[in-house]
């Protein structure tokens, strides 16, 4: 079975972290590292990682804790305001959709074409049939849908995305 750990691995790491490697390392450790593949790998990797971590040339520009707290507060407040405004935006969208729908229905009602059709159906001159209506005014449905989406899409975009 392949060995994946060595009991002296931690000693190597401790000696490196405390700056005791190799001169002041515990007795026999350098000799052990020379003969142990696991400790030799640990030394090769940990020594470079620690040296890189302690590189004096690296100067991270970490904001102070006070600044970080303030930024978090500001951001949370903005998010809370956005959350609070969401139901209003949804209500605005629904209202706009209803208004457009009402406008379309009213427009359709007062159009001579629709009025004739409804009058014919009401007086019995024409039998009410969905298929017949679609056949006659079938072009009207996609046209209305396009018109509807042209009006509603920008409304939804501005209310949801921009918000």
């Amino acid at each position, binding site marked *: 079975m392949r060995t994946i750990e060595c009991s002296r691995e931690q000693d190597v790491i401790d000696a490196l972290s405390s700056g005791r490697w190799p001169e002041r390392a515990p007795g026999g450790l350098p000799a052990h590292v020379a003969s142990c593949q696991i400790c030799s790998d640990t030394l090769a990797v940990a020594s470079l*990682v620690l040296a890189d971590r302690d*590189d004096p040339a690296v100067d991270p520009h970490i904001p102070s804790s006070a600044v970080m707290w303030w930024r978090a*507060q500001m951001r949370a*407040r903005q998010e809370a*305001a956005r959350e609070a405004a969401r139901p209003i935006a949804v209500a605005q969208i629904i209202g706009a959709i209803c208004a457009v729908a009402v406008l379309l229905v009213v427009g359709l009602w007062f159009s001579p074409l629709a009025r004739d059709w409804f009058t014919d159906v009401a007086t019995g001159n024409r039998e009410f049939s969905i298929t017949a209506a679609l056949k006659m005014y079938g072009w009207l449905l996609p046209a209305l849908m396009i018109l509807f989406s042209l009006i509603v899409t920008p409304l939804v975009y501005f209310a949801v995305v921009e918000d």
Partner: protein
Amino acid sequence: MFRISTTDVTLTGIDRLDGTADADVSFEMDEEAFRAFYDRTARSLWFYLSRMTGDSQVADDLLQESYYRLLRSHGSWESESHRRAYLFRIATNLVRDGHRRARRGETVALPESDHMSLAAPGTDLAEATAQRTDLRRAMGRLRPRERALLWLAYGQGHAHAEIAETLGVKTGSVKLLLFRARRKLATLLRRSPRYGGGRRARS
């Protein structure tokens, strides 16, 4: 490369007028606890992020994002070490998301010039610089999880249980994963020209 959506933190006119800017937003952690925790962990987290992403500016962004997400989380932590593991887990996930977005495959080329000090050849500083170059080159050839394991274990000195919590793996698996990552990195380092690997390859 990495991209993260950050929210512009500015006061709107309405905030200023109605005075809401002065009111505190409640987080699970209070200011004093947060600031103490931040002071203890920010530097090590920045190093972790910087070495994981290979870009100090991205590390700056991810640092802020990590702490913000920690504050917004509603978790309760048994100990400082659990909280720190949770913070590093957030950071690791952010890095992972960045890698996914970058769609660079499994390995990321870490810039060798980042924070590299210029030094005259033959000096200790030159030697140290060359070592760091080797390390970053070799780290860049590892998988993100392998890099994370090695940084957490040797750069941060985290215990196996904490590493497991951070990376979302079983504690028992950490030993084996760490062994493999260390083996791979040591082999890559020994193959580098400074260790005679390049010469050996040519002969």
